[in-house]
């Protein structure tokens, strides 16, 4: 089994309110079969036993699906491999003696929590603004009463694969959340179930995105390049079309409401 060593420059920051800095560590005896996070586990074990403070990074599933993990490795979100979260990145992708720079996602909307962990709750608020179908429990019709053409179901699923990790925002020079919101708008917009709220959804989500302090999309395409789920920027174009249509078609609020 191949083992090798690396030099890590890691962003250390105690909390959002304190300044941070890079600190250099050695990672000796790295095995090519380790995942990147397992390599950090070993570095942390050493730190703990030698009186240091372990490096904090978010992680949970370690299978590339929960979206917890993510930081910049040498300026690239989730590191060098395409369509791979940092928990799924294996050390066989690195060479002996390499020097790596690990930094948290940098975005006004994602304040640092500690070291490599950031606060991504803005994403939750964007979903809360409209990233859903209003379908109260118990009100559903039979599953096969809603037919969904397979190509639409597949496109919806491609978009729904988003894990909400934030790599798109971190790699965008403008800190835009366009790919994230477009993925949800695309997922629900391709399905018949998503049609009744389609206009409201795009208006409300885009408004929330702005409120959260995410930047504007200028189509640099950086987001698509780093997305671990390979979500395509064509969804952003689709979202922009939806937004335009919805803005023009915006209906006046009904003047009578109530449950009758």
């Amino acid at each position, binding site marked *: 089994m191949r083992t090798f060593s690396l030099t890590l420059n890691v962003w250390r920051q105690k909390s959002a309110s304190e300044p941070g800095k890079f600190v250099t560590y050695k990672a000796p005896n790295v095995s090519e079969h380790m995942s990147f996070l397992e390599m950090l586990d070993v570095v942390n074990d050493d730190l703990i*036993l030698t009186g240091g403070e372990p490096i904090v990074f978010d992680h*949970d599933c370690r*299978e590339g699906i929960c979206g917890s993990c993510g930081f910049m490795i040498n300026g690239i979100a989730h590191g060098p491999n395409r369509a791979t979260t940092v928990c799924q990145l*294996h050390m066989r992708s690195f060479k002996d003696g390499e020097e790596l720079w690990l930094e948290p996602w940098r975005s006004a909307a994602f304040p640092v929590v*500690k070291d490599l962990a950031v606060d991504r709750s803005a994403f939750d608020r964007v*979903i809360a603004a409209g990233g859903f179908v209003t379908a109260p429990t118990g009100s559903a019709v039979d599953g*096969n009463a809603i*037919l969904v053409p397979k190509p639409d179901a597949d496109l919806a699923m491609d978009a729904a694969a988003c*894990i909400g990790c934030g790599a798109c925002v971190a790699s965008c020079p403008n800190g835009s959340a366009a790919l994230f919101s477009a993925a949800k708008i695309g997922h629900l917009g391709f399905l018949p179930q998503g049609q009744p709220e389609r206009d409201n959804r795009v208006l409300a989500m885009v408004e929330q995105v702005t409120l959260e302090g995410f930047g504007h999309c200028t189509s640099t395409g950086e987001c698509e390049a780093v997305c671990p789920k390979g979500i395509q920027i064509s969804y952003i174009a689709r979202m922009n079309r939806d937004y335009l249509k919805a803005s023009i078609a915006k209906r006046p609020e009904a003047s009578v409401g109530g449950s009758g």
Partner: protein
Amino acid sequence: MPLDFPTPSSSSTGSSTSGTLDARIPDGPIEKKWDTRRFEMKVVNPANKRKYSVIVVGSGLAGASAAASMAELGYDVHCFCFQDSPRRAHSIAAQGGINAAKNYQNDGDSVWRLFYDTVKGGDYRAREANVYRLAQISVNIIDQCVAQGVPFAREYGGTLSNRSFGGAQVSRTFYARGQTGQQLLLGAYQALERQIGAGKVKMYPRTEMLDLVVVDGRARGIITRNLVTGKTEAHAADAVVLGTGGYGNVFHLSTNAKGSNATASWRAHKRGAYFANPCFTQIHPTCIPVAGDYQSKLTLMSESLRNDGRIWVPSKKGDPRSPSQIPESERDYYLERRYPAFGNLVPRDVASRAAKLVCDEGRGVGPGGRGVYLDFADSIGRLGENVIRERYGNLFDMYARITGENPYKVPMRIYPAIHYTMGGLWVDYDLMSTIPGMFVMGEANFSDHGANRLGASALMQGLADGYFILPYTIGNYLAQSKGPKIEASHSAFQDALKGVKLATAKFVSSRGKRTVDSFHRELGKIVWEKCGMARSRTGLEEALARIPELREEFNSNVMIPGSGEEMNRELEKAGRVADFFELAELMCFDALQRNESCGGHFREEFQTPEGEALRDDEAFCYAAAWEYKGQNERQTLHREALSFDNVHLTQRSYK
């Protein structure tokens, strides 16, 4: 952490026995029980619901679906999770699918067949009435999820598609590529976020429950720690619901997410909730084998792969040839050989044990001989690589990323790993624990899967509990509980708060020589070897001697850096591992008292001449529910007798 169990030398079963438990199952024929209960139930007037506050701990399928549904009904809901967002709960990782008795394939499925398969699959150790209700509700779950926009796989005509899973001969599993859990959870999460946005649910992410507060015999709140600031807080409510997941991480290496833990359940157990069937744990047959000491978790390859993959090992011991060099005649497709009717689709416990057996015989493959082949060559030949890519592409990619091998060309190597825990907090038919006012849902409870869970049934159960059972049964409880309003300033809360702070202070003053993980790893190894795929009296007794020693060392020699007033991951892990130590012991006691083999609990002393699990229905047809009796006291065993009036007790056969 003080000792909670006597040393095992004092008794070989560690139990004293008490009376029986009543699950409060409604009378009448099984088809009518749920209707009967729903009709009997008291309901809270819609205008009054907002006056009742409910704490939901957990935002997985069970927690998120319950929190959203109760908020829709009008309750004042407070929901907690330890991840940074409710969308990241461990349910997100489920791959294969969710069962429902829709019979869309016209292959003879029915509520009765799903019920029957689940009871049989659970090796006759589940509660019939609950399982029947689960099968009934399964069809509503699919409808609900479709309505939310879950992008299930579809046929060209636009109808929902199905696949087959282990332990069933019909095709009833609904799926969204290999990301079914993700899509179902996002559906529930979006429903939850809608309620958060509407101000009906208050969400507390990055917050861990560390104690349950019981006032006058009723659950009235929880104590939490904010994982960012370290602040401990008390939260009062009219009822508490746990959907905190399973305890598979007792084994250290498992397919569960790294954060999955038993702390909420265990602390509630210490406050009076009985813990049922802790030794019923599930080993999943198809996981990527262990590669090295640093390994932090095991990765599941969905069971759905067994639809198209064939499992084999070389016929000869220690065959050094690469798989492609081994001719058909020298391969042993051992599942197809031993179980011609179900073949590669036998239930998980059977498939796992069979893999262990061939590896024990020296016929295992890969490093250390702990692996078997899962081979897609035939399917690729028959269907083409594209069809296989369409069905399992993301799983194949995941395998390639982790192992560096291409499974389209070389057979996968797989080995069993701990995956799911059937045991959990005991609940009655209404999902209420032995503490009035505390309800338990999803993997955290014990009720529906007996001694073995069938694939694609956990997602079904979590959502059945959260969408369609708890929202009704909790109303029945609240409508009848006329307790006074209690504030978090009540002395019971203040005492619990003090206890939590004390435990934290003790941990952060630990400056020993070993990391929390090193203890967790060692504990996991003991439990895996002695209380894993096969158990024996001697092995369990060894474990019961070893675990307390290791725990003593943990208490005196663990190293926890930092303080309690900040984000401190080592501190979080230490609390969880302390609970795993205690739970591991209870698992071994439970395995020791159950002198039979059933489902995932395989006692080597109790097997048929063909090596199959040998149940003892005379003596053990019960759920074992353990009552905590205090530090250093022996836990008391209570039995809930199980009766099988609808599915007759027979030896399971998948031949």
